[in-house]
């Protein structure tokens, strides 16, 4: 498949897939709490409604940053699915997250400040592991290019079991799910109101939601990369990873930021770095 075609499919399909996954998340969470839960299409209804609401801002520029956030997340996903450099993907994704944080800082509210600070802490927590994932994939496939990694004949996960588990841990943080829903929780009445998204309403909030859909598809695509030589296995493991994240979300309470940071770095060092160390020693 040509990179342009993959790019087009990503741009069109990922909001649909991401939205359906978000709906599935709410449905499964509700079932785990023995509730019926909203319909599968609920996230789409929410975004349509938010798009029609009045947009209240503290400063007009805060929504510009959210626009940049959405744009960069889409750009990052496009890079990834077009088969570009994995390092570039990581840096673009970080830049996107930084724009989100800047938007929240711009809003001058104590809740969104605290949410933004916690988002930065979360970024500090997951960045090392994400970088180690890219390095681990390079060590096995001798390339940072996604299209070459995907064409590798062996299952990457066999050489990188530690990195895979570490990336799964990162996924939990990136999805902003319990026990790492520090910066913004989907559950009501947390101590931060809604943390980083507190001051966003209407279209800006809708854009944040859509950006998360794109981001989630990108991250699940990354999980797929570990199993790329067996496509069907890859797709089922991505889906299983998503269900695992939901299960963990419903089972765990929120960690304090210190514990989140410490545990994420321990995981990165032990599983990620350890795995890479073993790889380089075995060679």
């Amino acid at each position, binding site marked *: 498949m040509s990179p342009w075609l993959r790019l087009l499919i990503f741009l069109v399909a990922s909001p649909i897939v991401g939205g359906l996954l978000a709906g599935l998340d709410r449905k499964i969470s509700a079932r785990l709490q023995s509730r*019926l839960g909203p319909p599968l299409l609920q996230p789409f209804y*929410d975004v349509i409604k938010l798009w029609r*609401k*009045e947009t209240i801002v503290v400063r007009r520029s805060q929504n510009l940053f959210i626009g940049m956030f959405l744009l960069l997340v889409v750009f990052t996903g496009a890079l990834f699915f077009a088969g570009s450099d994995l390092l570039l993907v990581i840096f673009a994704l970080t830049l996107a997250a930084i724009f989100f944080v800047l938007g929240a800082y711009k809003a001058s509210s104590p809740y969104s400040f605290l949410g933004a600070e916690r988002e930065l802490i979360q970024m500090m927590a997951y960045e090392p592991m994400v970088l180690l994932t890219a390095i681990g994939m390079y060590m096995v496939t001798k390339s940072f290019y996604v299209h070459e990694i995907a064409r590798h004949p062996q299952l990457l996960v066999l050489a990188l079991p530690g990195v895979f588990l570490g990336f799964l841990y990162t996924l939990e943080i990136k999805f902003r799910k319990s026990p790492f829903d520090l910066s913004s929780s989907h559950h009501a009445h947390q101590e931060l109101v809604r943390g980083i998204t507190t001051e966003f309403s209407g279209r800006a*909030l809708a854009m944040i939601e859509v950006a998360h859909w794109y981001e989630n598809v990108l991250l699940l695509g990354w999980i797929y990369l570990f199993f790329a030589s067996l496509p069907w296995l890859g797709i089922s493991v991505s889906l299983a990873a998503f269900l695992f994240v939901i299960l963990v979300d419903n089972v765990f309470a929120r960690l304090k930021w210190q514990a989140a940071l410490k545990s994420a770095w321990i995981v990165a060092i032990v599983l990620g770095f350890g795995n890479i160390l073993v790889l380089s020693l075995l060679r």
Partner: protein
Amino acid sequence: MLGFRQSPWLIHYDASSCNGCDIETLACLTPLYDVERLGVVNTGNPKHADIFLVTGAVNQQSREVIRNIYHQLPEPKVVVAVGICAATGGIFRDCYNVSGGVDTVIPVDVYVPGCAARPEAIIDGVVKAIGVLEEKQRDMAAMAHSIDRTLFLRAEKEDVPEILALQKVAYQSEAEIYGDESLPALQQTLPELQTDFDRMVFLKAVVNGKIIGSVRGYQEDASAHISRMIVHPYFRGRGLSRHLVTGMEQAFPGVRRFEAFTGHKSKRNIAAFSRLGYQIYKTEPFTPLVTWVYLQKDLHTTPPSAPESKPRSLCHPENGRALAAAAKDSARIHLSNPTP
């Protein structure tokens, strides 16, 4: 309409009383009732909410909080008063610190009876609220689409109650700025406004038969006084006030000096008048919280404003009268509740 019907997000607030209705509101989220199956999310953040559920009677401490939350909800929004205390004050009605139901502070759209209101009744209230929400959204979309066809007309005697209702809505933002609800514009009663109508010139801005802006003025000696420039919060920043003020200036053709006043913290109003050539010439303390800022435009010293700002429809009074008549026939659009 897709969206609003499936996705009502709500915020609840317990104003006072026994907390029973608030507990029943939260009971709606439990597996037994599970309102999330209707798309309801209990947000805890007014900026994300569509429906404001208030339980309990209003007391001196909670009125500010209620008003504050109400203003942080983005339009369109609906208020549901849950339980008899929120509707009328209930058994706390005669307490020295209780001012009555929620509608003594903000406009209420749906009342849910009960003491405590049962979860089934609360869910029913939310479903009713969704209907109101959709209606408001439809009206606003229709009006926003035809904002460029706004008519600027002389108000008539029958318009006075609607103008008063608009005044109360428009001045909410001023009360918010000053933290003071005793502003004269918010205290004005219908008979007072009717007396004003007899001695002043009233202009109105009309869209789809609904008054969304108004201004009044009167002549005293050689000066014309322009006051109570009101525009519905949803339609601000679209140049309505400019049309209204210039229209009012033209209503006094012989007058060379115009005067207006506003509060010292109302930066938007001062900026709007400055753009029209008004200058601050004196300030005067009114209450400890509010200082009046007086602005004037003296045509003896300043050149007259450009003719392009002339309101169009004032030139077509017959056209306007027909529309006003049509408006009276059509069902009243409730952008905001009429004042009691």
